[in-house]
C-alpha cells in the first residue's frame, strides 16, 4: 500500500509529513497518530487501511457474496452471507481488535466471523506448472525482473513445482529483491500473468488457471502418463498394427516390445537398441538431456535416442511408431534393407492411437496456491489469548477461510494455510511496503466458542450493521470463479 506521506531520514529516524505534526519517528515506533510507523527505515501505514481502494477504483463494490447451500456436514455452518476480510483493514503490530468482528444470527445460532486482513511477511506461493518441458534443474533460482524470487523444487507427475517468495526473499535479501518478490507474489495471487526466468533453464509465463507459456510456446496438454505408463495404457490398441512403439519421455521412456505389457501380448523382439540407462525391461531413464523438445527431452529427431538395430533380430520392413507422452510429437518408420528406420506416412490406425493419447491428456494449467502463516499479532486481533485460536482451529471448532475460499490448514504448530487463489475474489491481495503481502483471512465459529477463546466480545457487531453501510460492497463478478 503506498502511503500518502513522504519521509525525510534523519539518522535512523524518519520524519513523516503525512500531517503538519511532522513527527520524527524512530525505527519500530509509530508517530503521534499511531497511523504511520517506521519499519526498518520505511514509513508504513499501520492503521486500518483500505487495501482495495485501487480495486474499488476500477471495479466498484465488494462483499458480501452468497455462500449458500445446505448444511455441508461441517460443525460450523457457512453463514448465509459471508463477510470476507478483503478491505477490512488491519493494524500492525496488532494488539487492537480486528476491524470487523461480525456476528450474525443464523438458524438461531449466534455466529461470529472475525474478519481481518493479515499482513504476511511469512508467505509465498507454491506454483504447479503442468508441463513435461524442462523448466530448469531442481533448486535452480527462479527470477522475476532479474531478482531471485524463489526456486525450482520437485518434479511431480506431469508437472513442475516452483516455490516462490518466503521470508528470505521478502526480507532477507536486498530491498529490490524484497519489493520484486512482493510484486510477483501479489500478481500471481491476484491471478495476473508473471514472467519467470529460471537459471540454466526456461522462461515461463505463469498465470493461475491458465496454460503455462514456456519459452514463448503455449503448453496445451499435460502428458497422459510417463512413457512406460503410456505403453501400458495403449499396448493392446497397438497390438497387431505396428511391430514396435517407443514413447519418448525425459523421465521414463517406454519400449513396447521389451515392456511387460508387450511381453504379455507375446509381441516379438525387434532388435531395437535404446540409448540411456535401462531401469527395468522396456523402461529407460535419461535417453537424452531434458529440454523443451519431444517428451520433455531436448531432442527434435527421435531417432537420435536409438542405436543401430540388432542385425540378428531385426528384419527389413519392420514398423515402428515413436510418440511423445502428450501425442504432440509422433513419427512412423519402416526399416529398410540396411535395417535403418525410414520415416514413412503413418497408417490411419496409428494416427488414431496418437489422437487417443492427445485426447487423454488434460489441459495443461498453472496452479497457484498462496501459503501463509497467521502469526501471533494477527491472532491477537481475533482474541486476547492467541493460542486458543490456534487450538480452536485444530479442534475444528473454527473454520478458516481466505476471501471466503476454503483453505488447507497445515497440521502442526501455528495456523499455516494454503489456498487456491483462483477460488478467491478478484484483487483479494494487497501489500504493504514492509514488504509483505496483505491477504484476507476469516475465522468463523460459534459465538459461544468465540467468547470461550477470549474473543473481543465488546467489538462483535451484528451482520445487519454491515449491510447498507459504506463498508459493504458487492463483489465484482469474475467468470469461472466461485461467487
Amino acid at each position: 500500500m503506498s502511503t500518502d506521506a513522504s519521509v525525510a531520514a534523519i539518522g535512523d529516524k524518519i520524519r513523516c509529513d503525512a500531517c503538519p505534526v511532522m513527527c520524527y519517528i524512530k525505527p519500530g515506533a509509530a508517530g503521534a497518530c499511531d497511523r504511520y510507523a517506521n519499519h526498518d527505515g520505511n514509513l508504513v501505514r499501520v492503521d486500518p487501511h483500505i487495501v482495495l481502494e485501487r480495486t474499488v477504483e476500477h471495479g466498484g463494490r465488494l462483499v458480501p457474496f452468497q455462500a449458500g447451500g445446505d448444511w455441508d456436514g461441517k460443525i460450523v455452518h457457512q453463514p448465509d452471507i459471508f463477510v470476507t476480510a478483503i478491505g477490512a483493514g488491519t493494524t500492525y503490530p496488532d494488539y487492537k481488535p480486528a476491524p470487523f468482528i461480525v456476528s450474525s444470527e443464523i438458524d438461531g445460532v449466534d455466529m461470529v466471523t472475525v474478519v481481518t486482513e493479515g499482513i504476511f511477511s511469512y508467505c509465498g506461493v507454491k506454483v504447479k506448472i503442468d508441463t513435461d518441458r524442462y523448466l530448469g534443474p531442481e533448486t535452480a533460482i527462479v527470477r522475476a525482473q532479474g531478482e531471485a524470487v524463489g526456486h525450482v523444487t520437485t518434479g511431480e507427475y506431469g508437472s513442475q513445482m516452483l516455490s516462490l517468495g518466503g521470508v528470505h526473499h521478502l526480507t532477507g535479501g536486498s530491498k529490490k529483491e524484497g519489493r520484486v518478490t512482493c510484486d510477483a507474489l501479489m500478481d500471481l495471487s491476484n491471478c495476473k500473468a508473471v514472467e519467470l526466468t529460471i537459471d540454466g533453464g526456461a522462461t515461463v509465463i505463469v498465470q493461475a488457471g491458465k496454460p503455462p507459456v514456456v519459452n514463448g510456446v503455449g503448453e496445451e496438454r499435460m502428458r497422459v502418463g510417463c512413457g512406460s505408463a503410456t505403453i501400458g495404457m495403449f499396448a493392446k490398441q497397438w497390438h497387431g498394427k505396428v511391430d514396435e512403439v517407443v514413447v519418448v519421455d525425459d523421465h521414463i521412456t517406454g519400449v513396447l516390445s521389451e515392456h511387460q505389457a508387450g511381453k504379455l501380448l507375446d509381441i516379438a523382439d525387434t532388435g531395437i537398441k535404446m540409448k540411456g540407462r535401462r531401469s527395468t525391461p522396456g523402461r529407460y531413464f535419461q535417453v537424452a538431456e531434458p529440454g523443451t523438445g519431444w517428451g520433455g527431452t531436448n531432442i527434435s529427431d527421435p531417432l537420435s535416442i536409438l542405436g543401430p538395430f540388432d542385425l540378428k533380430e531385426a528384419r527389413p520392413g519392420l514398423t515402428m511408431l515413436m510418440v511423445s507422452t502428450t501425442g504432440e510429437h509422433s513419427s512412423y518408420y519402416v526399416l529398410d534393407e540396411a535395417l535403418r528406420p525410414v520415416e514413412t506416412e503413418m497408417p490411419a490406425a496409428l494416427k488414431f492411437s496418437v489422437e487417443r493419447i492427445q485426447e487423454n491428456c488434460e489441459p495443461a494449467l498453472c496452479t497457484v496456491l498462496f501459503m501463509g502463516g497467521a502469526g501471533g499479532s494477527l491472532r491477537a486481533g481475533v482474541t486476547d489469548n492467541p493460542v486458543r485460536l490456534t487450538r480452536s482451529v485444530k479442534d475444528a471448532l473454527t473454520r478458516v477461510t481466505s476471501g471466503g475460499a476454503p483453505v488447507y490448514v497445515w497440521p502442526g504448530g501455528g495456523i499455516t494455510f494454503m489456498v487456491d487463489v483462483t477460488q478467491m475474489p478478484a484483487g483479494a491481495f494487497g501489500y504493504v511496503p514492509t514488504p509483505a503481502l496483505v491477504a484476507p483471512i476469516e475465522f468463523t465459529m460459534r459465538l459461544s466458542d468465540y467468547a470461550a477463546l477470549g474473543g473481543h466480545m465488546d467489538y462483535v457487531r451484528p451482520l445487519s450493521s454491515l449491510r447498507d453501510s459504506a463498508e459493504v460492497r458487492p463483489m465484482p463478478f469474475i467468470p469461472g470463479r466461485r461467487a
Partner: protein
Amino acid sequence: MKRLPQIALLPDGKRLHLQDGPIDLIVEAKGSEREVRMAYEAAAQRFTGLLDELCDELAELRQAADPNRSTLKGVVARRMHAAVVPFAEDCFITPMAAVAGSVAEEILGAMLGAARLDRAYVNNGGDIALHLADGEQFTVGLIDRPDSQGLMRTMLIGADDPIRGIATSGRHGRSFSLGIADAVSVLARTASQADAAATIIANAVDLPGHPAVARVPANELQPDSDLGARLVTREVGALSESEIEQALEAGADCARRLLASGLIEGAALRLKGKTLLVGTRGPRAVRRHEELIQA
C-alpha cells in the same frame, strides 16, 4: 497535495467520525434531524484546518507552560494553556497535556453555536466534551485499559450535574505517563480541565524508584515528545497489594486536592485490578448505576 481531514458518518448512520493526523473524534448529537445535520456541518467546518492551527504553534505548545503568561494565539491553544495553568506552578506540564480535551471542547462549541441540541458529545480518543440540555443524561462507560476491552464501570451524568468533561489518562494510552496507573478517569466541568487533571493524577499514581517499574526517557521513544528526557513508564512488573494501595493512595491525595480546589468533580483511579474512587460523585454514580441495572 492538499491534505483534508477524513469526515464521514459511521456505519450506524448516527455518529460522525472526524480524523486528521493524530486527532480522531467520534461525535454524536441528539435533536431534530435538521439541527443534528447543522451541528455536524458545523463540526466538519470547524475541524477542517484545526490541526494546522495547532501545528502553527506546536513548538510553544510543547514547552513547559508559564503560569503567568502566554503568547499563544489560537483559541484552542489558549484553552490548552488555560487548562494546565493551575498545575504549572507546582510541576512540569505543557499545554499538550490538555490537547485532546481542548479540541473536543472546540468542536462541541462549534456544534452548539450552530444548532439547538438535546444532547451531544465529542469523544476525542476517550477525552470527551458533553452537552446536556435540561432533563437529559448520559451513561458513560469507563474503561480499565485503553488497549483492552471491557467496561470498568459506568456512570450516569445528568443535566443538573456540573460535569461536562471526561478524560482518561494512563500508561496504556497514546501519550506517555510519568506514573504507573493503568487508567485515571476524571470528571470535570470542561473536557480540557478533565484532560489536564487526568494527566496530573495519573502521573501521581507512582512508586518512585521501584525496581519493578521500567522507565525510559520519553524522547528515546518519540524524539519530539514534549516530555523531553523525562522518564516515562514502559512496563510495570509484579507489585504487592500494599504497593498497589500505596501508589493509588499517592494519586488519590493529588485527586483530593484538585477536588477541594474545584478543579475536578471526581476521579476513578485504576492500577493492577484495584480501583479507588475520589469525590462525592464517584460512589453516588456507582450507586446510580446499580439502580439503573435493577430498573
